[in-house]
């Protein structure tokens, strides 16, 4: 189990994260927050690239920095900006990654073939990485992160650059992988995690806002989300969350404590909850 105990991270006078405490067991955790909220800082601390200014991070009760290689051997990490050697092929690059992960040479090629199959890239295994599309590169990145069969998989904005088909395939893959490991994926795209994350971690003002199931988070806004025609008058206590296309033209999704005139109550989605939480914050509500 991974425990984050009262972790604070400061860069000089700037506090990027403050007093974060989390306990993570097996399953998929979605780290959801707007850009600049500290998602990558938290991910990098979990990947031992950054060190907490205060607090500590434990794996099964042992501090991860002290565990060193033993911890990193359990870890798979895909950074937000996946780097690669442009003149290598996916197979060559993964062989290097396998050497870094201390995977026995005899086992390396078998694992690489299996993972390239899993991410749907068996035909691109021997093409130069610089010739692959953004989505294909991202899939190579996921395969690299999975190379050591990690017990903790950290994926920082893994769906960036993926097309809708690839996103669905990715979600299915993550869902199947999470059965026996902790998967933490950060994103600001709600639909990426809505269906697969068992728990959603939300950050606000550099602090932990919640670590709840999507149902619990949406539940906070039950009876407060309404759909209105686009030409409806918005009252001061109402907050427009989004605009979309309804059966009879453009409609607004509105957060309101009181049912508005012409408003139809709708079940809150995770996106509504996300927008509501951060819209309210922006408006100082």
């Amino acid at each position: 189990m991974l425990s984050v105990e009262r972790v604070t991270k400061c860069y000089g006078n700037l506090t990027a994260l403050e007093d974060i405490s989390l306990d993570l067991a097996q399953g998929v955790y979605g780290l959801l927050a707007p850009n600049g909220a500290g998602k990558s800082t938290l991910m990098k601390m979990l990947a031992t690239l950054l060190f907490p200014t205060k607090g500590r991070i434990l794996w099964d009760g042992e501090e991860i920095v002290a565990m060193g290689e033993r911890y990193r051997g359990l870890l798979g990490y895909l950074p937000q900006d996946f780097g690669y050697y442009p003149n290598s092929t996916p197979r060559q690059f993964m062989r290097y990654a396998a050497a870094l992960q201390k995977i026995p040479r005899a086992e390396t090629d078998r694992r690489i073939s299996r993972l390239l199959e899993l991410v749907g890239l068996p035909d691109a295994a021997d093409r130069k990485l610089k010739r692959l599309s953004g989505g294909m590169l991202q899939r190579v990145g996921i395969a690299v992160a999975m190379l050591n069969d990690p017990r903790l998989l950290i994926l920082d904005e893994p769906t960036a650059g993926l097309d809708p088909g690839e996103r669905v395939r990715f979600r299915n893959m993550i869902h199947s992988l999470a059965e026996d490991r902790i998967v933490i994926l950060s994103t600001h795209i709600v639909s990426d995690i809505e269906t697969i994350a068992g728990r959603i971690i939300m950050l606000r003002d550099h602090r932990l806002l919640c670590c709840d199931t999507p149902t619990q988070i949406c539940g906070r806004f039950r009876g407060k989300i309404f759909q209105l025609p686009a030409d409806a008058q918005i009252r001061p206590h109402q907050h427009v969350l989004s605009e979309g296309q309804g059966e009879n033209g453009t409609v607004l999704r509105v957060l309101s404590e009181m049912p508005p005139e012409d408003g139809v109550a709708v079940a809150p989605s995770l996106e509504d909850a996300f927008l509501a939480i951060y819209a309210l914050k922006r408006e100082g509500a």
Partner: protein
Amino acid sequence: MRLIAFEMKKVVCFPALWTFLMLSLVLNGLLILGNDDVRNYFDTEKDDSGAIMGAPENVFEGYDTGVLASFYADIVRESPTAADWIRKKYSLLQPRAEQLAKSGAALDHYAGKATYESHQLLFGILMRATLVEGSICAMLVILYLMGYEQLNRTEGQVCASCKGRRLWMTKLAAAMLSAEALYVLLAGMTLAFYLGRWDYGGIWGDSVSSRFNYLTDMLYKRPFLTWHDFTVGGYLAASLSLGAGLVAVFGLLAAVCAMLLRNVYAAALVLGTVLFGGIGLGSLFSQCRVWAAYFVMTLQPSAVWLDVNVWFTESGIAAFIPWQETVAVALNLAVCSMAVCVMFRRFMRRDLS
């Protein structure tokens, strides 16, 4: 071992390095070909011992190093400590002069009247060129490998892997091995071309302190007094070996800059400034006659490189202690190795952006 091979493969696939190596070999070739007139002289003189009239003179017999001591002590007279060091050095050299006189080193023919020119070409020009080329290769390789992950944005993935940040020690080992291999290649090919054109047959066993060899420093000409009995072959082997050490020093210096600054271009800039600035500072201190500071400057790697043609000799004003170039290389190796260890420890606990 697998990772060292991977890292060395990155070096092999670095096109700028091979371009530099090719240009260096072309330059060395031109240096050799440009001295063909000296070669003709060398060919005539080297086997022409009979043509030298009179009995060979043993220049070390009765040689008094006190003359040299007085000359150089007078130059550094502003600093009594420096003058003492100089006098001490030359007093230690006196038994060497006596030993060379006894062994008859001066009676060896070497290359006859062409000795000075051929010796300067091999050790003053070619060795100096090979050393600077090898050192640049070493610094290039180190900076390239140390900054490779940053340039390819793979640093985060690498540092989060099982091997983690310790990969940079593997990189250093691979880079140093590559740098030394490149130096051997450069020196080997340059020497092969040189010795293919210059016939050193029958010379290798002659003493490098032959009466035909001499040193000139501040217009002061004196015999080639070395701290050990060197044959021509032995002197070349010793110079090449110490050169390998100096290449390692430059490599480690580059590693320190790369790990300190974490930016390849900034590291290259600082490295260039330190090396060229060090040479300039040495000249400045000698001009200003600040001899204690000048002495410290003679220990820096670029100063050792500049004096390659007088290595293992008393070296005049360029050295304050016996075997100074060897001591300087050993000292630099020790200091740079310690600095690398400190930088590495710092890197292990440093935040990566």
